[in-house]
C-alpha cells in the first residue's frame, strides 16, 4: 500500500517524539542511579498509595495500620519477618519484594544502603525528624539519618528471675553459669547477639573483625553450649515466667514482656558493657509509594504516636517528646525504660561488618552445631 505524504510525515514526527522520549528516559535513568527522592511529589494523593510494611511480629501496636490509615489516608498492610537476616535475604533477592518500608536493625540498614537498595530520605517530607534526641541523630551506622530513621533503640543484657538468683554482674552468668543456673540459661540465636556476650566478656569490640579474637569468642561460646537450655530469640521471656530458665540474654524491651507477667523478672547490664542497637525504618528503592512511606515515617516520629508505640511495645523510642511524656510513668514498672540517651551511648553502637560478615556466619554455625 502506498503511504501518502501526510502519513509519512506523521510517522516521522512520531518517531522523533519517541526517540526524544526514550532519550529523556535514558538520561533520567542515568541521573537517577543515586536517587535522592528529591523527585517526591508534595501533592501526591496518599489515599491512592497502598503501603506495605515489614516489621517484627508484636513490635508495633495492633491497630497501627488502622490508625495510620485514619490519620493519613493511605491504606497499610503489615507483614512480619522473624529476624533481620530473613528480611535481608528477601530484600536482596532481586526484583521487587513488594515492600515499601522495612524495619531492620541499624547495621543492616547500613548494608542495604551499600548495596544500593534503599532510598536516601528527603527530610522535607519528614519534618518530625527534629523530635529525635540529638544522640539519635548521629548513630554510627548512619550519621545524620540519611537513609534510615530509628524507631526504637536500646541495649542488650541479662533478663533474670530476681527471686531465684542473685543479680548477675557479668556475662559469664550465662557463659559459665553457676550450679543453680546450669541448663537454665538461654542465649540469643541471631549472629551479632550470639557473639556479643562472649565478645564483651573477653573485652573485645562487638564490631571486631579480627580473626584471632573471633577464634577466642568461638571457643568460649562452644564451651558454653552444654549449659544452655536453648538458643532462643523469641520465647525466652516466657521461659523465665515458667521457671524453665532463670537467666537469659535479652534485649531490654523484650525483658519487659517478662516483667509484665512476673514482677520478679528484672533486667541488668553486665559490668563488661554491652551494645547500643537501634531498629530503623528504611524505604526501598523499588517502592512505588515513596510519598506515603515518608508520611509513615513522619507519622511515627510525631511525639504522641511515638509515645503510643513505646507504651505498646515497651521499648525505648529515640523521640524526646515521646519519652518526656511517657518515660517516667513506664519507668516506674519497667526501670530500663528510664535509661537516658547518655546512658545508652555507653553501649557500643553496632555497625555493618562488611567483608567479615561471612566469618561471623561461619562461626555461628560452628557454635550452634557443636
Amino acid at each position, binding site marked *: 500500500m502506498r503511504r501518502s505524504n501526510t502519513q509519512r510525515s506523521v510517522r516521522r514526527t512520531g518517531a522523533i517524539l519517541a526517540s526524544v522520549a526514550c532519550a529523556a528516559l535514558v538520561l533520567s535513568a542515568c541521573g537517577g542511579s543515586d536517587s535522592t527522592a528529591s523527585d517526591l511529589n508534595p501533592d501526591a494523593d496518599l489515599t491512592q498509595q497502598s503501603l506495605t510494611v515489614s516489621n517484627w511480629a508484636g513490635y508495633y501496636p495492633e491497630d497501627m495500620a488502622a490508625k495510620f490509615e485514619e490519620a493519613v489516608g493511605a491504606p497499610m498492610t503489615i507483614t512480619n519477618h522473624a529476624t533481620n*537476616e530473613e528480611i535481608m535475604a528477601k530484600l*536482596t533477592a532481586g526484583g521487587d519484594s513488594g515492600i515499601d518500608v522495612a524495619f531492620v536493625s541499624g547495621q543492616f540498614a547500613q548494608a542495604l544502603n551499600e548495596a544500593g537498595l534503599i532510598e536516601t530520605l528527603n527530610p522535607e517530607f519528614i519534618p518530625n525528624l527534629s523530635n529525635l534526641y540529638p544522640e539519635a541523630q548521629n548513630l554510627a551506622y548512619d550519621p545524620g539519618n540519611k537513609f534510615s530513621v530509628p524507631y526504637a533503640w536500646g541495649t542488650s543484657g541479662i533478663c533474670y528471675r530476681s527471686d531465684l538468683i542473685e543479680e548477675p554482674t557479668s556475662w559469664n552468668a550465662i557463659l559459665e553459669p553457676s550450679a543453680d543456673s546450669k541448663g537454665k540459661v538461654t542465649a540469643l540465636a541471631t549472629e551479632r547477639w550470639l557473639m556479643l556476650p562472649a565478645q564483651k566478656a573477653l573485652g573485645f569490640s562487638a564490631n571486631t573483625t579480627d580473626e584471632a579474637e573471633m577464634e577466642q569468642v568461638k571457643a568460649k561460646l562452644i564451651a558454653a553450649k552444654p549449659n544452655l*537450655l*536453648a538458643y532462643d530469640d523469641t520465647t525466652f521471656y516466657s521461659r523465665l515466667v*515458667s521457671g524453665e530458665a532463670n537467666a537469659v540474654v535479652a534485649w531490654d524491651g523484650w525483658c519487659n514482656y517478662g516483667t509484665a507477667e512476673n514482677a520478679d523478672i528484672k533486667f541488668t547490664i553486665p559490668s563488661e558493657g554491652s551494645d547500643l542497637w537501634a531498629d530503623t525504618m528504611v524505604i526501598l528503592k523499588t517502592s512505588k509509594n515513596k510519598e506515603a512511606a515518608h508520611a509513615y515515617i513522619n507519622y511515627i516520629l510525631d511525639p504522641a504516636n511515638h509515645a503510643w508505640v513505646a507504651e505498646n511495645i515497651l521499648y525505648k523510642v529515640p523521640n524526646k517528646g515521646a519519652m518526656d511524656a511517657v518515660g517516667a510513668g513506664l519507668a516506674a514498672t519497667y526501670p530500663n525504660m528510664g535509661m537516658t540517651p547518655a546512658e545508652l551511648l555507653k553501649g557500643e553502637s553496632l555497625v555493618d561488618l562488611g567483608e567479615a560478615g*561471612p566469618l561471623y556466619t561461619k562461626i555461628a*554455625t560452628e557454635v550452634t552445631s557443636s
Partner: protein
Amino acid sequence: MSIPTPTSGRGAARRRALIGRTVFAAPGLIYITIFMTIPILLVLVYSFFQRGRFGGIVWEFTLENYVRAFEPVYLQVFSNSLVIAGTTTVLALLIGYPTAYAIAKLPTRWRTVALVLVVLPFWTNFLIRTYAWIILLNSEGPINSSLMDVGIISAPIGFLYTPGAVIVGLVYAYLPLVILPVYASIERLDRQLIEAAGNLGASRARAFFDVTLPLTLPGVMIGAIFVFVPSLGNFVIPELLGGGKTVMVGNLIRDQFLEARDWPFGAVLALFVITLLVVLFALQAAISRRINGTGKRVSGRA
C-alpha cells in the same frame, strides 16, 4: 482440517501413539522439566561458583565450596543428621511394621478405614502437628503434669530442646509414610508361602523372619527411604523442637539460602541430600529385584 488417518494398522498405531504422547504427556513432561529438572540442574551448576558480597552469584569457577563442605564443622553436622535421621527411621519401622502387619490382618472391610485413619494426619499441616508436640513436651505440658500428678517425678523433665524431642517429632511427621508401603508389600504376600513354611515345621517366629520379612523387604526399604530422606532435609522440627541446639543438614541448607545467602555452598549441601536419595533408591531397586526374582521362581506369579 482432519488428517485422513487409517484407524487400523501399524502406521496408524504409531501415529496415534505420537499424537497421544504429544497431546497428553508432553505438556506435563515439559512442565516438570522446566520447574523441577532445570532448577535442580541449576543447583548443581551453582555449586561450582562463588557467592557475591550481598548474596547472588559471581561466575568464577571454583571447587572451594566442595572443599569447604568437608571441613570438620560441616562433617559434624552431616554425621549428626545421619544419626538422627537413621534413629528416626529405625524407630518408625519398629512402630510401623507391626502396625502395617496388624492392619493386613484385619477383616477386609476394616482395612480401608484403618489405612485412612493412619494416613489422615499426614494430610494435615505438618507445622501444626509439630506444634502439638511443643505443647505436649513442654515442662508445663500434659505429659509432665500427669507424670508429676501421679508422683512418678517431682520436677518436670526437660523433654523439649533435645535431640530426643527432634526424633520424636520426625517419627511423628513421617510415620504414615512408612506404614503405607510396608502394608502394601505385606498385603501382596502370598500367604501360601507362609503356610508352606509352617507345614514344613517352621515355628511362627521362624516363618516370620525367614519368609515374611525378606519378602516384604522391598516395601520396608521404600518406607525407610520415605522417612530417612525427608528427615535429613527437615529444618523446621530441629528448630522448633531442638531449641536451635540440634543443627541438621536441612537447617544448614535453609540458612545458606535464606539467611547467610551463600547459595553456592547451600547448593553443595543440597547435592549431598540428592545423591543420598539416588543411591538409596538404586539400592532399594537392586535388592527388590533380587527378592522379587526369587519370589517369581517359587510362586510362579509375575
